């Protein structure tokens, strides 16, 4: 047996050893249950469950479940959650008890002053974990007034965007591919629409969002930098609801309601942009082009007192097309092409209580991402009896079938053991190109075909075990191991991935924590361009291009200032290896499955930094101040002679100040100000003649055109100007008819700062270079209308 497998299994057993002699202690009882919204019946994620006058507590999981194991007796429980009234309950426990808790949405009282009581202080949440509610996301002013999950997260410390306006997610110096993005537990590969300017999910259909910076729990794996867990709404179990949102770019309709009241619900949502209609107004003669995106979500949920079944479907697609037709000198030329990309995912999940102390989940899921490009080119010369036609089809993508099982065993005193398994069958289509051409004239017909679709099949498997140990009231520790295995042809890799976290409660208000995580990633993203234009290829790890690996060390502290205010600070260091980047000048579209490995450089990366977050989540004024001081670099043997260079989005300083102030229950004003050190750019450094040897094969002594060539020097050798902007929006909410409507009017980049979207180097006639900056996002107004009934 492989040595690393033996080590992994040994560590897995160590996780379970502390509990082996104790088993289920008869002197304790389990109080468990579900926490749901009292009106809609939706399960609530992350509700703090506290046992008064003890340090015992729990947070509800993705299904709203909790378990606390405690000695028998009278127990005073409190359930608190942002936006809901705290629910208190006193029960006499003699045996295992199952509770169904309904939390009442809070009636907003803007002037209420809460008395600080140490017993009611919320549990300090780690600075490495960011949770957001859809309501918080929707109040942040955004480009075009379109609320966006990913862009809201970009305002958090340690999370950086790519180019302005894009939905790139760079967490602690990692790439956008290094985030495990789970939509109802199913990994999603590409999360952007509109060439990266909008994310693939609307907050209107989301129940909760949680971002864990770093590998996090041993439950998760396969990505190096973060886990973004997005839970979709389940649908209202009690009442039919309709939600309509109309924005500048897209419109959305959501329907939800009970199929069987209190037990079975449905949710259907569809969104589409109307940009194609607008683009029709700007068509040049002879040419036609258009773009649209759309996505849809469907969900069925069945819940009982102890179980739940969920069927989730998500599909999203972007399409850009172009057609042209020209007539010249008896020749009719026609050209048409399209570029499609999108995701299609589905999952069937079950969750339930196996015993009062053991919660389980199981799922079967399919996730697919595809990028297709097609073009057809016809040159028709009927007078000459000639016709030339060429078709090119390019496709790239990945499709996964996955099955996972998770089990959590709750033990007395806030101790618990988690273990489970994941099996994924991958099918990669790295980059396949087919061409077909034909030529006809009076006496000849020729045709030819090249290429084909080549696919690679791989397996990923993982077993994990994790234990949470409490050492007295102030210290606890999470010790986990994930044993990952990856197979593709003759390439096989096994990674024992340790995960360690310890927390020490200094006072009732202050907690410090330290974490060490190791993770591997067996899929690579090869990106040609630095915006979300989908010429990005998802590629499997192979014998030559190994899986990516990362160690991350984190030290942090959190202080609860008041009931709703918390401050946290974290220091991190991350080391990554086996990262890939295209070789200089490589044209990825021409790459096929058999030679893409020759088109990449393999190197390593390093990132470190400090993060601060001051956050207030309730009251008349809500928001946060986030600051990141960071550095991220890469090194590739054949780039810059193997010297380390700053990454494109290496930003020394990154500040975000976001706030919402409600003047009344009708009017709220929101504002965001961001500042970031300019991106690193790679600009030409020296000019020299670009001598070409065309004379060599025509022996023409008079021919000597010498246009310029440029020496770029070290990679990312210059900084763009610093980036900053202010966004403001106003929300007006009012009951209308049977429902509630909200107008949101705002402006993006309100003081018209000319931030660089990109910089180009443009040669002047005298040989010098003019740098041109493009700043399209200035004073962009946004408006949206939202109506729910």
């Amino acid at each position, binding site marked *: 047996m492989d040595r690393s497998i033996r080590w992994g299994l040994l560590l897995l057993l160590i996780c379970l050893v502390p509990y082996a002699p104790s088993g289920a202690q008869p002197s304790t009882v389990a109080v468990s249950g579900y926490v749901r919204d009292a009106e809609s019946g939706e399960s609530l994620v992350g509700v703090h469950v506290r046992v008064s006058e003890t340090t015992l507590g729990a947070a509800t999981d993705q299904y709203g479940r909790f378990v606390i194991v405690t000695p028998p007796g009278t127990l005073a429980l409190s359930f608190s959650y942002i936006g809901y009234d705290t629910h208190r309950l006193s029960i006499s426990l003699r045996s295992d008890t199952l509770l169904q808790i309904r939390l009442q949405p809070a009636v907003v009282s803007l002037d209420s002053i809460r008395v600080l009581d140490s017993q009611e202080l919320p549990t300090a949440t780690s600075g490495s974990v960011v949770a957001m509610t859809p309501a918080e996301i929707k109040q942040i002013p955004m480009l075009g007034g379109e609320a966006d999950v990913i862009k809201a997260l970009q305002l958090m410390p340690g999370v950086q965007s790519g180019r302005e306006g894009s939905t790139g997610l760079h967490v602690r110096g990692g790439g956008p591919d290094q985030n495990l993005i789970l939509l109802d537990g199913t990994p999603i590969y590409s999360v952007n629409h509109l060439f990266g300017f909008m994310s693939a999910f609307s907050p209107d259909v989301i129940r909760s969002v949680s971002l864990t910076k770093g590998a996090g729990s041993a439950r998760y794996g396969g990505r190096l930098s973060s886990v973004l867990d997005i839970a979709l709404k389940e649908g209202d179990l009690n009442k039919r609801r309709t939600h309509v949102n109309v924005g500048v770019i897209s419109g959305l309709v959501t329907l939800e309601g009970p199929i069987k009241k209190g037990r079975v619900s449905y949710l259907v949502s569809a969104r589409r942009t109307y940009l194609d209609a607008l683009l029709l107004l700007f068509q040049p003669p002879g040419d036609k082009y258009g*773009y649209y995106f759309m996505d849809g979500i469907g969900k069925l949920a069945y819940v009982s007192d102890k179980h739940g079944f969920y069927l989730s479907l998500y599909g999203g697609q972007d399409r850009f097309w172009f057609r042209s037709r020209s007539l010249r000198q008896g020749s009719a030329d026609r050209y048409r092409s399209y570029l499609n990309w999108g995701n299609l995912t589905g999952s069937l999940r079950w969750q339930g209580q196996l015993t009062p102390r053991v919660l389980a989940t199981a799922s079967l899921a399919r996730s697919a991402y595809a990028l297709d490009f097609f073009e057809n080119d016809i040159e028709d010369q009927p007078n000459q009896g000639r016709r030339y036609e060429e078709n090119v089809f390019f496709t790239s993508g990945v499709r996964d079938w996955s099955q996972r099982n998770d089990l959590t065993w709750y033990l007395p005193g806030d101790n618990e053991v988690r273990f489970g398994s994941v099996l994924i069958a991958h099918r990669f289509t790295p980059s396949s190109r087919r061409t077909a051409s034909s030529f006809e004239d009076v006496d000849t017909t020729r045709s030819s075909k090249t290429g084909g679709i080549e696919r690679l099949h791989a397996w990923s498997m993982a077993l994990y075990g994790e234990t949470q140990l409490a050492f007295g009231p102030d210290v606890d520790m999470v010790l986990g191991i994930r044993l990952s295995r990856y197979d593709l042809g003759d390439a096989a890799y096994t990674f024992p991935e340790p995960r360690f976290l310890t927390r020490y409660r200094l006072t009732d208000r202050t907690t410090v924590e330290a974490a060490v995580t190791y993770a591997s990633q067996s899929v690579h993203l090869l990106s040609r361009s630095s915006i979300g234009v989908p010429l990005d290829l998802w590629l499997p790890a192979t014998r030559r291009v190994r899986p990516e690996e990362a160690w991350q060390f984190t030290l942090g502290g959190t202080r609860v200032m008041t009931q709703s205010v918390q401050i946290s600070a974290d220091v991190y260091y991350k080391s990554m290896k086996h990262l890939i980047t295209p070789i200089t000048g490589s044209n990825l579209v021409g790459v096929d499955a058999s030679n893409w490995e020759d088109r990449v450089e393999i190197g390593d990366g390093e990132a470190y930094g400090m993060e601060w977050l001051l956050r207030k989540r309730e009251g008349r004024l809500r928001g946060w101040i986030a600051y990141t001081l960071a550095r991220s670099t890469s090194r590739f043997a054949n780039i810059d002679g193997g010297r380390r260079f700053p990454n494109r989005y290496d930003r020394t300083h990154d500040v975000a100040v976001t706030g919402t102030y409600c003047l009344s229950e009708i009017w709220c004003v929101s504002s965001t100000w961001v500042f970031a050190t300019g991106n690193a750019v790679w600009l030409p450094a020296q000019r020299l003649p670009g001598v070409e040897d065309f004379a060599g094969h025509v022996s023409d002594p008079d021919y000597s055109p010498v*246009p310029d060539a440029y020496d770029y020097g070290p990679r990312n050798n210059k900084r763009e100007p610093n980036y900053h902007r202010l966004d403001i929006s106003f929300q007006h909410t009012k009951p209308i008819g049977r429902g509630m409507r909200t107008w949101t009017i705002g402006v993006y980049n309100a003081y018209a700062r000319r931030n660089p979207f990109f910089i180009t180097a443009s040669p002047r006639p005298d040989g010098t270079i003019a740098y041109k900056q493009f700043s399209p996002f200035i004073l962009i107004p946004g408006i949206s209308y939202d109506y729910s009934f």
Partner: protein
Amino acid sequence: MIIRSDRGSIRGKNLHRRTGRLGLVLAMALLPGCENLLGIRAPESESKLAVYGFLNPDERVVIDLYRSASLDEAVTEEALRLDDALVIVTSTTQRDTLVRTAPGRYEANRLPRQEEGYAIEVQKTGFDTVRGECVVPKRPVTRVRVAKQGETESSKQFRVTLQLDDPPGAHVYRMGLFLFLEPDSRQNDTPWAAKFFSSSNTALRADPADVGGQPLETNPVEFDVVYFSDDTMEAQTGEFVLNVELRSSNSLEVSLVVTSMDSAYFEYHKSLSLQRRNLEDPFAEPVTVFSNVENGLGVVGCYANQATTVRFQ
């Protein structure tokens, strides 16, 4: 008369350019009126020697020597040429010091030989000593046949078959049709056109095809070439078919040139073409021009031509 060879057909029109077209449309839609000149200085860097030597058995050894300039420095190409340098060419059998024959140009009175290695060393006060080397490949062995396919009132059709014997080892080739024209004879019409076709055992790789570049408007001759590797005809004979249509009552003589080249020669021209293509593309990664010159810039590349005169009448 102008010769134009159509670069379509089996080689496939370049997909990248097509996606670039889509990108251009997107840029047109998104970026109107948001451009402004930026007052930032070029990255700091030092001037280097740039050496250009393209060695082949048909021409004497010629080296062009330049220095690179800061991007803030408005100088002409002539002003970048460097005199008073010591340029030495060394082969396994001979060592020569090159003589300056024109500003920045140094020549040796010797013809490079096939399958022989050459090292170029340049010493110039104020710069690091630079050095580059290459091996002249063997002249390609080709056979050309021309067959008349048909004739109408206004045109004649020909089929040109080229056979190329590929020796063992990795090779890159270039093929082109060329015709010399008087500068004042340029016309707007296209008197004849050629289409490249290959036999089924020969694939033309997509990337080398990028190197052909656009026809040069400043050149009295308009031409186009294809670059291809020997991946699918290793140590065999490859066959290429060109369909040529002559739309002139006169006969025409053209030169069909096949070039075998070393990797430095190929990589340099390829990267130079890519750099030009990407320079003003905001979404493309910059391309560094290939250089095999130690401590400097430029290229020392070797190649060998085989030219065949083809007559269409």
